[in-house]
């Protein structure tokens, strides 16, 4: 991302949470790479023993959709824009661990090929936008699905909205801590500002994710696993 000299204001430059080079200190960037490596390794370990046949095309569809959706910055108040992260949606479609593989691939291609997010910040960009969103988003969705218990209605879409809004807030929270730890901006300055902006961006994320899940449930309900209280065997997929 060209932060210093924007080539043209007419070009979209999406980065609601993509941290550019220069914002993170060396040690902080190293912690990011370590965290991302650990979680991607767990994701590979989980998925290389239990990936279902249906998951492969769904992973491809999710990757295509998330990449395209992340280009579509939508305006929020105050001359600011945001875009979906999509970790919650991906996790609902393919499960949390396969979602980490998908999100890491998307964020990796964005960083390496499109210079969206810095190389030094790639670890934390993967962790913030791929790991936190997939795990927390799936966890909250799982609880909402148990609560809805297979019933049609507003419970599940509302739960999906809350899950995805929460992941944006948590990712913004994590980003603030990383920026503060790097000495880029003091926490009492950056944290309230980040949370305020992303509370609005999260509404967009929540609406789009809830709409997408509702659309898939209406057209292809077989694609989405809905955990139920009466299910014979629960557990993370």
């Amino acid at each position, binding site marked *: 991302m060209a932060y210093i000299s924007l080539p043209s204001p007419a070009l979209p*430059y999406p980065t609601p949470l993509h941290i550019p*080079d220069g914002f993170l200190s060396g040690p902080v960037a190293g912690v990011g790479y370590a965290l991302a490596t650990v979680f991607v390794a767990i994701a590979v370990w989980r998925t290389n023993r239990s990936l279902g046949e249906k998951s492969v095309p769904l992973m491809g*569809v999710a990757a295509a959709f998330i990449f395209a*959706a992340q280009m579509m910055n939508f305006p929020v108040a105050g*001359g600011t824009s945001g875009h979906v992260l999509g970790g919650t949606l991906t996790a609902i479609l393919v499960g949390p661990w396969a979602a980490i593989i998908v999100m890491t691939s998307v964020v990796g291609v964005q960083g390496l090929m499109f210079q969206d997010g810095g190389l030094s910040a790639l670890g934390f960009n993967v962790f913030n936008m791929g790991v936190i969103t997939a795990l927390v988003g799936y966890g909250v969705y799982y609880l909402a699905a148990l609560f809805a218990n297979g019933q049609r209605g507003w419970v599940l879409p509302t739960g999906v909205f809350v899950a995805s809004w929460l992941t944006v807030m948590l990712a913004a929270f994590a980003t603030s801590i990383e920026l503060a730890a790097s000495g880029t901006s003091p926490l009492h300055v950056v944290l309230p500002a980040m949370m305020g902006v992303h509370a609005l961006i999260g509404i967009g994320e929540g609406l789009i994710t809830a709409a997408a899940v509702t659309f898939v449930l209406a057209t292809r309900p077989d694609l989405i696993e809905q955990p139920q209280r009466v299910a014979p065997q629960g557990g993370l997929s």
Partner: protein
Amino acid sequence: MTKKGYVALLLVGIGIALVIALFSPLASSKPDGLERVAEDKAFVDKGKDAPYEVIADYAFPWVDNEDAATILAGILGVLVVTALVLALGLGLRALSRRAAIAGTNLAGPAPPASAGGKTGPKER
């Protein structure tokens, strides 16, 4: 679902993504969340440009029309991430199948004695 069903699902999904990419020039070009905060809180200058550029700012090089450059970058990105994730997914699926055959998949090796819970293991 049949093999054909999977391919159809994939094509529809990629199709939706490509349609979204066609609309990418309409995306808001206002500074996004982190950028806005970086500008307001005066740390935007700490940002550095990437050490190298391939398709920076989602603008396909050698294309003068900005809208066309953005759309081409979007289409290329969609195809690249999809191919990458499908390759990874197929690899992980192949490993999962081997694990299932070897009986070492996650659901496989749980011994019945450990599944008893509070009431204690029940021998069958």
